[in-house]
């Protein structure tokens, strides 16, 4: 197990380094400097600005400086909003995005597992078909479409919930719903298929033969094993939720990281783009790593295999 964790850890660091490098060189291959806009600056100001942002040094030196700053978690100042640093923006935006992401993930996991479980237990019944139709629809409708539909119907036509912003729990309902539908649908389908497979296993028959109550069989024996495949997709689901926050935060005017990211893309604010990309990637890669480790711990077959091997 330790060897496995170390191997994964090294892979994680390599991926992270690759992303930092890729981001850095991509950003620097863009023609033009962030300072040559319509506003003409005189030459000394230009020189000083370039010096301040280390743009006068050779590329490889800049790369080294950037690596150093990333390791020390200092992403430098924003070019467009000169009074702010990237760290300020991340510090302000991250808690909001984190809140949105976590609530969404919880809603998606709980409702997805429930939906999938019910569908599997009522296999080929009306409830099964209804649940799976909802699931395929959930996968097919992009989150930004979902978000606008919800705003149009719930907020504008019915006027029950606020249209935008992020102030009270009431404001959180629509963005969370819009963001959670897709992941929920994926989890529901996965839970259903793995639950159906588990329910045909011998140990379920044994449990039934022992006279265990159906509730106990489903929750103690079937569900625990059926959820293993669900754990494996949690990492990529978290990724889709994270990128989903870009559009959802844009649509609902939520002051999260995604909003800064989209803004910085439109304004070509390179330090902010680099900083947020690296930050997002670090979170995602860490999540994938944790999911891998969790899977290794949860799945008894993997442990058994390791013991036999050593």
């Amino acid at each position: 197990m330790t060897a496995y964790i170390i191997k994964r850890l090294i892979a994680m660091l390599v991926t992270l380094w690759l992303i930092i490098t890729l981001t850095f060189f991509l950003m620097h291959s863009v023609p033009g400097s962030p300072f040559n806009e319509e506003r003409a600056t005189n030459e000394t100001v230009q020189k000083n600005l370039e010096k301040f942002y280390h743009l006068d040094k050779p590329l490889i030196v800049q790369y080294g400086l950037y690596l150093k700053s990333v390791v020390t978690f200092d992403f430098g100042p924003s070019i467009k909003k000169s009074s702010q640093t990237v760290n300020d923006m991340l510090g302000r935006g991250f808690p909001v995005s984190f809140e949105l992401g976590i609530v969404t993930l919880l809603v998606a996991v709980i409702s997805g597992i429930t939906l999938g479980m019910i569908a599997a237990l009522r296999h080929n019944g009306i409830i099964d078909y209804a649940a799976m139709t909802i699931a395929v629809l959930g996968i097919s409708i992009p989150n930004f479409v979902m978000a606008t539909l919800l705003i149009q119907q719930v907020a504008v036509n019915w006027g029950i919930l606020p249209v935008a912003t992020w102030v009270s729990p009431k404001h959180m309902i629509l963005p969370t719903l819009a963001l959670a539908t897709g992941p929920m649908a994926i989890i529901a389908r996965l839970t259903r298929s793995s639950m159906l497979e588990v329910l045909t296993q011998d140990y379920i028959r044994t449990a039934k033969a022992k006279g265990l109550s159906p509730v106990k069989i489903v929750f103690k024996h079937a569900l625990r094993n059926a959820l293993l495949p669900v754990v494996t997709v949690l990492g990529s689901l978290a990724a889709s939720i994270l990128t989903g926050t870009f559009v959802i935060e844009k649509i609902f005017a939520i002051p999260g990281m995604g909003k800064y990211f989209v803004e910085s893309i439109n304004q070509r604010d390179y330090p902010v783009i680099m900083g947020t990309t690296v930050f997002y990637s670090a979170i995602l890669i860490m999540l994938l790593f944790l999911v891998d480790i969790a899977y290794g711990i949860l799945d008894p077959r993997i442990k058994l295999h390791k013991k036999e091997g050593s």
Partner: protein
Amino acid sequence: MELRKRDHRYTASEISDEWFVQKTKNENEAEAVVRPSLSYWQDAWRRLLKNRLAMAGLIFLILLIFMAIFGPLISPHSVEEQRLANQNMPPSSEHWFGTDELGRDVFSRTWLGARISLFVGAVAALIDFIIGVIYGGVAGYKGGKTDHLMMRFVEILYGLPYLLVVILISVVMGPGLFTIIFALSVTGWVGMARIVRGQVLQIKNYEFVLASKTFGTKTSRIIKKNLLPNTMGPIIVQMTLTVPSAIFAEAFLSFLGLGIQPPFASWGSMANDGLSTILSGHWWRLFFPAFFISLTMFSFNVLGDGLQDALDPRLRR
């Protein structure tokens, strides 16, 4: 024929022709196969035909392709025709899907969007297919150290957050159709490579491949004639899932303002334009592109599901 002791050994001279009975043709016919023998593909097609939801998806997609090609011709209004007097008109017999803020016909533009969305989906799937099959095929077939090294690279790419990379490349290269396709292809082929490699790894140890090798068949021919046809099922399923994810990524990018730029339109950019007017009640500007994105993704998803069931040899009846 008399009975002999069990341990008696016959010599060659003792075996006579009378022992053997010539079977007549009639007896052979009794063993004839009653059910017509179906090839793998015929059987899969037969099972797909029975899956109503998948067929509905397939029929919708065929209609969509037809409309993407001929839709703008059917409409009485051209894609670029602007009539400022007809700004933001709701759907009517004149403009079936209404008009936008420049008085352009949304019906015509919806099919223009369909062209771009389908084109992005098809090209992305094709590039994924080419790179993924070659890469995965070589890794799986060579095995050993080559495979190990090639898969390490894939693993690292797999760990990259897909949409972030796509956004990053779009920022650098500037928005446009080519950028989107390039960005989607950079990391998109990885899933396909993994699937092909897994399949090849399994199939290359089967007897018929071994037989082929024994006859001295060239490696390239073995891959082309023995391995690929037998991995086609999972490859097709993967492709039907790549297309909607590429269409979604294009819509997502266009929605963020990184995708298709005017005067071209895609469903994503139309939805983005429509979003700003939704509060003023111009629902049709958002509804039609959003509706067709969703229906297209739905069709590809149910078709993919249906193909997965139809092509799974374990489910063959």
